[in-house]
């Protein structure tokens, strides 16, 4: 199944790319503007990685090392960009800080370079920060016991020395894997560069693939598309391999648990917390609210005051999107169910085993959406062209890892004796699965389904390359409307799409809490 979903398409991609030999491959990569796109992708990835790590680590230190009830809200705020689709974030930034945006209207100030390299980097960083933050915060919580830092202080180290000699070295694996994730996200990103970069002539490999594949019918450009997709896969694999090799750390931490109730060392000032809150407000909350205001306002050029508010844009958006809303719902729903079955099966097979089956989900998730879409198109496009099934195949190939992860993690926590107890109580293998395993895994299964739904519902990169007249998804409609220039209706549609995703995210949080409580 997995071979059909991921293996065959990627091999087919590499085969097509190299069937004319290395010379043709290299030639395809030197086409007009392509070296610039490759270079842009690489430095965008590197810059976003460094910046996302700095911001994510700083925020993690604040939320994990401070006390009080604000912590929970700061954490949720830091993770919010995960629930705002990247292209919606880009639209939001335009409405908030762009020319004729909120800040321009009221303060006479707009971010220079928002359209172009600087803007792409900024929004990609905001998009990649939550992942870096999550990994580093988890590392701070689990790898670096507060007592380890206290021991350094008691040994005569200043706070800064303790951070440098104890905290940072312990965090190295987290920093490396968080950085790897940020790099993959940045290199894969399509929605942000296509909205902020393309209008200013700043192209990455993903936007170039889109332009050549979706907007051009030139056969020579198809060779370039295939070559770029292959290069994109190679870059990602190298990044994953390097981060895997670096994150190795000898020995493990002994954690008999910290004494209860003693807060970790010292942030007592309110200022760092306020800085994190300010960051969240400026980068996520204000852009999204600006987008909501734009969607509510009757026409471009009117001030976004209540007197000018209307719901017409939303009605218009619903009409204009046609069947796309249903398409997205069906695709995301089907992907959620199938990806969880597939991920669960792989988790069951991989249980207790290490090696290639364990790292497989990570590797397939890292395959860039643009490249995966091209690969799926090459492999199955002839039979499934323009059908929803083609998009579903791509979604499954990309997102089955999201279904796999929570289930595999939860499976590892079920004591083997629970299953054995069912067996000696007279349950056959199937009865054991039905009466013990699945009930215990249920919270993880729900979480996995919602997660896949969430990502599939706002997927743009692959959908934009694979859609046909009858298989447009909501995200694709948003992109197309924006390119036509229908700003207010685009905003309305983007807001609606995000609300669905936010609702799914809320469900996910509830499912997580239920899982912990049981």
């Amino acid at each position, binding site marked *: 199944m997995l071979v059909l979903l991921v293996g065959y398409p990627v091999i087919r991609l590499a085969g097509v790319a190299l069937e004319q030999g290395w010379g043709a491959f290299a030639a395809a990569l030197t086409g007009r503007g392509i070296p610039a796109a490759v270079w842009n992708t690489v430095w965008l990835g590197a810059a976003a990685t460094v910046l996302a790590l700095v911001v994510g680590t700083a925020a993690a230190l604040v939320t994990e090392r401070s006390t009080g009830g604000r912590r929970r809200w700061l954490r949720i705020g830091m993770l919010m960009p995960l629930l705002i689709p990247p292209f919606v974030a880009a639209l939001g930034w335009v409405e908030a800080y762009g020319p004729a945006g909120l800040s321009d209207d009221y303060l006479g100030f707009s971010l220079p370079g928002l359209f172009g390299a600087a803007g792409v980097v900024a929004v990609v960083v905001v998009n990649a920060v939550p992942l870096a933050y999550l990994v580093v915060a988890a590392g701070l919580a689990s790898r670096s016991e507060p007592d380890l830092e206290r021991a350094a202080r*008691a040994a005569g180290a200043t706070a800064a020395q303790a951070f440098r000699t104890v905290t940072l070295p312990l965090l190295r694996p987290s920093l490396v894997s968080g950085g790897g994730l940020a790099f993959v996200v940045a290199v894969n990103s399509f929605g942000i560069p296509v909205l902020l970069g393309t209008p200013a002539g700043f192209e990455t490999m993903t936007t170039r693939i889109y332009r050549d594949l979706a907007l051009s019918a030139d056969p020579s450009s198809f060779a370039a598309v295939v070559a770029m997709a292959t290069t994109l896969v190679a870059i990602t694999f190298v990044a994953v391999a390097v981060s895997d090799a670096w994150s190795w750390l000898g020995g493990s931490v002994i954690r008999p648990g910290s004494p209860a109730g003693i807060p970790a060392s010292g942030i*007592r000032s309110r200022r760092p917390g306020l800085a994190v809150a300010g960051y969240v407000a400026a980068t996520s909350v204000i852009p999204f609210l600006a987008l909501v205001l734009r969607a509510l306002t009757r026409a471009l050029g009117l001030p976004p005051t209540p007197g000018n508010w209307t719901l017409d844009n939303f009605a218009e958006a619903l009409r204009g999107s046609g069947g796309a809303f249903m398409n997205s719902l069906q695709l995301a729903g089907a992907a959620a169910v199938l990806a969880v079955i597939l991920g669960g099966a792989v988790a069951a097979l991989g249980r207790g085993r290490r090696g290639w089956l364990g790292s497989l989900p990570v590797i397939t998730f890292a395959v860039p959406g643009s490249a995966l879409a091209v690969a799926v198109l090459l492999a199955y496009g002839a039979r499934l062209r323009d059908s929803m099934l083609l998009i579903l195949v791509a979604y499954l190939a990309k997102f089955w890892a999201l279904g796999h992860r929570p289930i595999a993690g939860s499976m590892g926590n079920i004591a083997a004796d629970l299953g054995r107890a069912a067996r000696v109580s007279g349950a056959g293998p199937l009865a054991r699965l039905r009466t013990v395993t699945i009930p215990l895994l249920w919270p993880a299964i729900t979480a996995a389904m919602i997660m896949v739904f969430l990502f599939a519902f706002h997927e743009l990169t692959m959908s934009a390359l694979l859609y046909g007249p009858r298989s447009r998804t909501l995200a694709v409609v948003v992109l197309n409307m924006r390119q036509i220039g229908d700003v207010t209706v685009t905003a309305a549609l983007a807001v609606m799409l995000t609300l669905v995703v936010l609702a799914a995210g809320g469900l996910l949080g509830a499912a997580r809490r239920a899982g912990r409580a049981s």
Partner: protein
Amino acid sequence: MTALRVTGLDVALGGTPVLHGVDLVVESGEAVGLLGPSGSGKTTLLYAIAGFVVPTAGEIEIAGEVVSGSGRNVPPEHRSLGMVFQNYALWPHLTAAEIVAYPLQRAGHSTGDSLREAGSLLDLMGIGELSGRKPAEMSGGQQQRVGLARALARRAGLYLLDEPTAHLDSALRADLQQELAERMRTLAAAAIYATHDAAEALAVADRVVLLREGRVVQVGTPAQVYGEPVDLWAARLTGPAWELPGRAVGTGEARVLVRPDWVAPGAGVPGVVEAAWFRGPHTDYLLRIEAGRLEMRRTGPPQWAAGDRVEVRIERWWPVPG
């Protein structure tokens, strides 16, 4: 000389008061056992002394210098003390030698000198051959010794030991308790052992402080806190104790405490053995006498079985105040 003086210390964690008006004086060369059940505030008190939590009121003075209180709050690295952490807190990315050398480096010694000094400290602990190993490659007892060596490398006048033997198995624990006590004695430094194990506190300390829900309940020599507990709670914390009406021992006091080793067979009150627990070196007998129940401890294997009649003499008792 006074190594540590704590006066009227209040500490709150996350708004909840944890320590209330704690007073404590430790002289140089003295070992103080800080005894209390889990949650009584032992670790919090040590953390306040070390500077990891900021007290809401009170004063802490180390070797005559005020480190906390009256507006001062000296950071941990500038307080002259060594600490052994409950879970050892050994840095997993460093080797044993590097861990022990760390405080020396922070004190400004060169890396070479520090590592050499660390080597001799590890030799002193009897684990010189482990200097190249990381914490994950060491047993619990070895890790404990590394943690102690790191504290000693601080060359301080005051050592804080937070349940230093809590995570060791019982055979090793007894050995290490003695070893710790001897090391501290030869250093002539002051030490505070936090523990919830009465036997450990009584064995290693010159004085014992009983802590209950963040308040000091009693301070005294091990013999005092064992023989003259201030109340029933303090008595139970330091060892087995039974409460009887005063008439059982012919006194006017309302209630008295009797410990198992204060009871012996002989002319006195008649009783019935309800249970006998053989514990190796000695046997404990649960007895019922007319006035109530009590326990008797005798060396050797059981001489009586449940149901046997035996006459006992209560050789010592202690009135329960209040």
